[in-house]
């Protein structure tokens, strides 16, 4: 304690000295135009080190699918539009746009003052180049190609007007367009670097790529010419920071310790026990943003008996006390999920909240009705000599305590005579098991701001097969749901779409086709001296407004 105090005194002395020295130097410069005494002044300049939990594979938004990549290249690449908290869209690199009523043609009018970091002018040709490149098989796009969906072509109307044509209605395009995965890359740099563009990214964003030391850090510098921030940003002009460094620190305790000791400015993905501690730490601020899309959702494989029976599925749902599971495992730091979409997703249906509650008696009754009336020596229910066993497929490492969800579920389902076997596999093996349908229950979560995420998880075209890795993990084949999910693509009116998606959400819960668990909060612990860490609509961090308070 005494040591800390001594250190504080030394630090304050150093700070005062450096401030005095700074004042001396700056006295020759003209006085700033604004800034009243007593308000917190923002320091321009300085370095910000951010602890990343995992390393991106490439920094090419058209290729890379990972969240880790997004957290870095969002600062390098700008999008045509930006999504606001109320799910409307505002100008960014596009100043205005028109959408055809059938949601197949999108016309954008572009800013005329934008330049890529390498000096290449940004215009309609550049936009066309970007979209054509994503669908080119040689690009080997892993995710952007899915976002752009039924893309047909781009037409350059004039230097600053572009029309994007789709083969089928594609209402989610606006949301997709606001994601950094469809961010604008410099055509000159793409041609120059070819396959190596992912190690030499060039965009129009507030930060310019400097270097990437593999497995160690990625360094970005301020783009001094930046003057096209969207209105959702906290200021205009160049970023406050001179340098933004991402240090890759996979080990949780090291990442947390590095923020605690002040060696880095901030770190992401803080484990629940540390969130609780950091909230009581006077030097640290805890920031959280809820991920939109699908929460971590468990699904029963409906092609396997007895999970094809709605009574058995409902019994499972009623026997699980999700409140207790989420409160126990995440110590009150995660919110429980109620439906197949998280609350921050466009088209979220609040009616799912409190629509299902634990009811062991009802669960037992349903299993009796379904014919699972006999019991074996361990109390597991049986039917025709077969025990009622549920195999829960889950990958390592124990991401967000998903193994422990299995353990708690095991105890709770034992109460109604269902025996849960936790099938722990390496990630590679989980992918295989999913493609081959070898599980009774497994789960996934997907980050996406548009309710079309439901199509990825519940449409029959997305059923995994031995040739295809997709996320209809319940193997749901329901024509009515398929139709609703396709109807949702046809209108760009959020009200109309919300009504369609509400039907889907309610149907999935009523028929126990989805078992939502928790909403993942993206967490950042940062030194209190820094302000302005923002999150975009997909809960990814933005560092454009970050400044050190003086």
């Amino acid at each position, binding site marked *: 304690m005494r040591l800390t105090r001594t250190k504080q005194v030394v630090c304050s002395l150093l700070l005062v000295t450096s401030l005095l020295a700074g004042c001396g130097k700056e006295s020759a410069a003209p006085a700033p135009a604004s800034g009243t005494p007593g308000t917190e002044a923002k320091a321009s300049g300085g370095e910000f080190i951010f*602890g990343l939990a995992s*390393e991106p*594979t*490439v920094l090419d938004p058209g290729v890379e*699918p*990972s969240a880790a990549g997004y957290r870095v290249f969002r600062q390098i690449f700008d999008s045509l539009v930006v999504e606001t908290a109320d799910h409307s869209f505002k100008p960014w690199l596009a100043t205005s746009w028109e959408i055809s009523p059938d949601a197949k043609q999108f016309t954008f009018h572009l800013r005329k003052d934008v330049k890529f970091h390498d000096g290449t002018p940004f215009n309609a040709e550049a936009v066309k180049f970007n979209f054509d490149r994503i669908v080119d*098989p*040689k690009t*080997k*796009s*892993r*995710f952007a*190609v*899915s976002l752009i969906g039924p893309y047909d072509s781009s037409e350059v109307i004039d230097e600053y007007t572009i029309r994007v044509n789709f083969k089928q209605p594609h209402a989610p395009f606006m949301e997709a367009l606001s994601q950094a995965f469809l961010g604008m890359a410099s055509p000159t740099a793409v041609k120059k670097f070819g*396959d*190596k563009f*992912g*190690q030499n990214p060039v965009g129009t964003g507030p930060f310019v790529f400097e270097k990437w*030391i*593999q*497995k*160690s*850090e990625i360094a970005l510098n301020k783009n001094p010419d930046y003057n096209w921030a969207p209105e959702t940003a906290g200021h205009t002009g160049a970023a406050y920071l001179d340098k933004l460094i991402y*240090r*890759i*620190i*996979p*080990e949780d*305790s*090291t*990442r947390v*310790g*590095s923020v*605690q*000791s*002040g*060696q*880095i400015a901030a770190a992401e993905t803080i484990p629940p026990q540390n969130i609780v501690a950091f909230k009581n730490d006077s030097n640290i601020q805890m920031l959280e943003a809820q991920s939109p899309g699908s929460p971590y959702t468990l699904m029963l494989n409906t092609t396997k008996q007895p999970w094809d029976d709605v009574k058995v599925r409902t019994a499972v749902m009623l026997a699980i006390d999700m409140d207790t599971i989420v409160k126990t495992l995440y110590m009150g730091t995660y919110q429980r999920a109620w439906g197949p979409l998280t609350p921050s997703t466009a088209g979220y249906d609040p009616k799912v909240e409190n629509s299902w509650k634990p009811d062991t008696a009802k669960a037992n009754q349903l299993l009796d009705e379904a014919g699972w009336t006999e019991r074996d020596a361990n109390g597991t229910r049986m039917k025709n000599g077969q025990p009622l066993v549920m195999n829960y497929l889950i990958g390592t490492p124990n991401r967000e305590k998903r193994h422990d969800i299995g353990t708690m579920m095991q105890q709770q389902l034992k109460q109604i005579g269902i025996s849960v076997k936790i099938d722990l596999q*390496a*990630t*590679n*093996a989980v*992918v*295989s*098991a999913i*493609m081959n349908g070898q599980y009774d229950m497994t789960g*996934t979560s*997907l980050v996406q701001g548009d309710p079309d995420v439901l199509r*990825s998880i519940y449409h029959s*075209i*997305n059923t995994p097969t031995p*040739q*295809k*890795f*997709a*996320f209809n993990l319940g193997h749901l084949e329901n024509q009515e749901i398929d139709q609703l999910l396709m109807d949702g693509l046809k209108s760009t009116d959020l009200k109309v779409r919300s009504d369609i998606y509400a039907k889907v959400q309610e149907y999935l819960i009523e028929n126990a086709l989805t078992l939502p668990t928790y909403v993942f909060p993206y967490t950042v612990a940062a030194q209190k001296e820094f302000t302005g860490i923002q999150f975009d609509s997909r809960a990814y961090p933005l560092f454009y407004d970050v400044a050190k308070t003086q």
Partner: protein
Amino acid sequence: MIGFLVRRILAAIPVLFGVATLVFFILRLLPGDPIALMLAGAPADEETMNNLRQQFGLDQPLIMQYFTFLGHIATGNFGQSFVRSEPVMGMIGEQFVSTLMLTLASTLIAVVLGAVLGVISAIHRNGWADFVIRIISLLGISMPTFWSGILLILIFSVHLNWFPATGSGGFSRLVLPACALGLVGAGFIVRMVRNSMLEVINEQFIMTLRSKGLSERIVMYQHALRNALIPAVTMVGVQIGELLAGAVIIETVFARQGLGRLIVDAIMNKDFPTVEGAVLFTAIVYVVVNILVDVSYSVIDPRVRTSN
């Protein structure tokens, strides 16, 4: 000596061929589709996946893939990484420097600490110094490196703020990870040196040296230690291999660059060319270190030289 070296290098070729073949087939026999993993959890349709398969040559029959691979490595080309579209050789080069520094630093700590403590322990056999050193060596051997690594970070980085917890490059970032790894090696070497010192001390030439009136220090450090070092050197050869492997964990805990992390990440992503290249490279390092250890015997012990 040159004949010996040539024989050893020729003998290494079938070893490396075996390693290459094994790693090629093990990777492909393990469950999991590299294309599915490449998507990192993002949904994709069949067309996208088939296109990726074709682009990476994974639609070819296995035997064709194998011959292409052999053709590549025979010409010293480890291929291109699936996930980074970069030559694997360059990626290995970038990571290896850091692993090499860590291995050398921790070997140095292990050898110096191990030899000094081992000798002290043998001289003061069954005394309190021997007792304390044996406990330290036991702790060094039995503490898992991820645990001692985190402990070192907590004490010397978070609380005392003497050394940075993360990153690679520079002396200050090397100290803690090298200590965490070196302590394990030191634990083994202490026991090795202590035992062989005890054997040597009881030999007749030591008595002769003492009766010549040489000081105890010269007897111990110039004559006894030199004889006791031979088994310890063998140990160092084995240890360097162990250190290369153990570095994986330490590199992760301290967020350092390194070959270990390159391999682990590549295995997780099923990035076949990177795993194949990095494993083969590690095998080459093993072979070279072992040849060097054999050569070093003759330097330490003149009797080996004359018998050759």
